[in-house]
């Protein structure tokens, strides 16, 4: 498995999740554990560029794949989060940012969302679209407005 561009290897039991492999075995603590159930998005990482929740994957399934965590992200949306105060406690933030990066790529590829009026069309990234597409990332501090503003700013 490549993590943030570096080859890694670890002997792990098959039950070890991708998230625990990163946090507890590889010392990559950027992805956060909020629910361990796929319900909060705090553990979101990019696997070969696609956003996934790392808590519901087993690390063994990701052998040979490219995993990017917040530590490996260098994206304008990070600065935009700070400018727009799209964070408070910071715990959901790595997941929000990885999710935003993945989401922008999905949108650029023309993928629709539940907010897309006509799924046959190529949707424009309205605030309603951003909100729907980011709804897998909970923020209990309620920094949603700032997050949406940050993403909209970067998306132009």
């Amino acid at each position, binding site marked *: 498995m490549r993590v943030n561009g570096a080859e890694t290897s670890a002997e792990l*039991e098959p*039950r*070890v999740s991708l998230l*625990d492999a990163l*946090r*507890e075995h590889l*010392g990559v*603590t*950027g*992805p*956060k*554990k*909020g*629910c*361990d*159930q*796929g*319900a*909060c998005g*705090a553990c979101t990482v990019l696997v070969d560029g696609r956003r996934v929740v790392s808590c519901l994957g087993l690390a063994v399934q990701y052998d040979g794949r490219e995993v990017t*965590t*917040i*530590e490996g*992200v260098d994206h304008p949306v*990070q*600065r935009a*989060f*700070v*400018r727009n*105060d799209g*964070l*408070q*406690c*910071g*715990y*959901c*933030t*790595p997941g929000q*940012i990885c999710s935003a990066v993945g989401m922008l790529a999905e949108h650029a590829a023309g993928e629709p969302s539940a*907010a897309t009026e006509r799924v046959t069309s190529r949707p424009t990234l309205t*605030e*309603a679209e*951003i*909100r*729907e597409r*980011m*709804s*897998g*990332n*909970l*923020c*209990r*501090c*309620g*920094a*949603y*407005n*700032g*997050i*949406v503003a940050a993403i909209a700013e970067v998306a132009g």
Partner: protein
Amino acid sequence: MTQAPPAPVTEAPVLGAPVDRIDGTAKTTGQARYAAEFDHPGLVHAALVCATVPRARLVGIDTADALAHPGVLTVLTHENAPTMRKSPSPGLPDISTMATATSVTYLNTDEVHWNGQPVAVVVATTSDAAKEAAALVRPSYEPLPATVDFQAALPDARPQKRNPFSPAGGAKGDAEAALATAPVSVDLTFTTPMHHHNAIEPHATTAVWHGDRLTVHECTQTIDWTRRRLAHVFGVPVADVRVLAEFVGGGFGGKGYLWPGTVLAVLAARVTERPVRLALSREEVYRTVGGRTPSTQRVALGSTVDGKLTALVHTSITQLGRIGGWPEQVTSQSRHLYDAEHVLLRQRQVELDALSTTTMRAPGESIGTYALESAVDELAHRLGMDPIELRMRNEPDRNPLGGTRFSHRRLREAYALGAERFGWAERSPEPGSMRDGRWLVGWGVASAYHPAQMFPANVTVRLFADGTVLLRSAFHETGMGQPTTQAQIVAHELGVPFEAVRVEHGDTALPTGPPAGGSMQTASLAASVRAACADLRRSVHGLARRSGSVVGRQRPADLVARDGGLFGPDGGETYAAILSRAGQSRVDAKVGSDTGLGRVTGQLRFAARMVRDGMRWVRASTGAQFCEVRVDPDTGEVRVTRWVGAFDIGTVVNAKTATSQLRGGIVMGIGLALSEETLVDPRTGRIMNPNLSGYHVPVHADVPELDVAFVGDPDPTMPLGVLGAGEVGITGVGGAVANAVFHATGRRVYDLPITLDKLL
């Protein structure tokens, strides 16, 4: 004689500026570390075994399979756990006892007091092994009679004891008699369910013993209280316990007390002589950390035909555990919001065989304003009067109970500002009369109210010869932006650039800071930071005088702190120049003392000030919440589509972080209004949605743009004029949403959350 220190310039742009968070980069790059992310050589992992019955005696606990699981080091149960000391019940004079969450000494008893009480802790070399082994532990219970159904227990409600911050009732005149004879009246009953904080970071502890010295990385809003409670429980000197919490992944009141996980992690480390990490699962947080009480409330209002309140009755029943809990101040806002001629406020409680209830964002006012403000809205409807007009007709000049002065009160201004931004004048008053296409549209309004108080805060401000400044205080950053705001205050007080200020916090090795609770941290720290900076300016002036600086030849009163130094009519010098000439590498200023005597003095001063201030003024953050909802006429789905919150939080230190704090309160309030409910099975007292898929906190798609505006008037009695911002934002939200739903549909919902089934 002590001279007044040189003054800071009053219009320094750093105070109030929307400065970016000092820790923004750390938090957006994954560098910020939280309690479960500290590694130590030999670190092992713990997991809890929680009871599955509400009340029982343990008659056995089979740990054989768990112990046989590869990687398991030990399983601690009531049969083998070392004895710990019981933490004293909450009470003065030692305010750190407030952190005692329950009266149970975990694993030192064979009694189960709530469905979820830890009955064993497993320690293993990996978290997977610990959790799996925990599932293999088999306790045997002899069931004991249990009372776990809040609704069924209501007839047994008893008068509530007051909590440290708010009385449990109050009366003026004869409210029931006035109600009976009022020309117009409403008499309504409301219910609210249990809520849980659901900070996205689950509670976690990393505990390391070196002999009898203990270091704990802990997610807590009260590091000093945590340290003192742990020292007590494990019988070691307070000075030998160090608690660190630089970053905490949200708290909202849920990390204010010493819950079982913390104690058991420290115990596991003690027994295994290994560093132990106990990162609770989301379910374990629900099982072992208290939530907000459910409530039933009666609000009755009587008025004249022109809307002058003659009677206000607000009573409540809330829940505590038999083992402890927070007496929720449900009627708090009703003491202060309306100038009713006759008032009756009464809080009662039931005690269940359940985990202690606890503080959650604006305990009392968050759910109390839902009931009160719904009732006011209903009265306005019956009077045929605009709900803002009704409120303005009953806006008091002095506190309705007792006639104490308000330190300042800008609720009228907040309503005017909010109404203007929202476009309230365009509202058509008749319920169901506004539509947008097929959607029913409703506009609702409600008052926000949260008292302003302060804790003691010790700080050190250190000025270095290079002109940079270090603020040191063991305060907390749980998301409110405290290091940023305090750096702004230091920059303002010393006239240095914001970038020149560094902040150290979240470590009990620092001067003792205030807890992050009750919306008190900013003001509590501001008082001490201001005093320390004034001391520092005085010291620098003294240095300047002794070393022959032009600054020293001027009177302090003629000097202002700006541009990184002190300047007067005859010129000035930077701090760097003054310190350099004086041959000083740094100057320290301290406020508060962490000696035993200093601590007692500080607490006495704190208690005295609380009593004195309470007699002199009623102080609070207030606001006006404006909500637009759309309701699907077919399905009853409610969407919040517009929001304006106009707030008086006194001086706004950082417009950016304060706006976020208030928005965060509103978002949690939208959850309270529409979707949040902890499902406690009334047969077993067991929480049945201990997760984030069954407990519905708002997601991105539930939250529209929230327009937050500030009245911006400093409170004349608070340091820098600062009131609190952390909790007022959630207050009034439930009422505003419920009132908007009523306006959209003609249906008033008396039972939170307002799920669509209640509108069909």
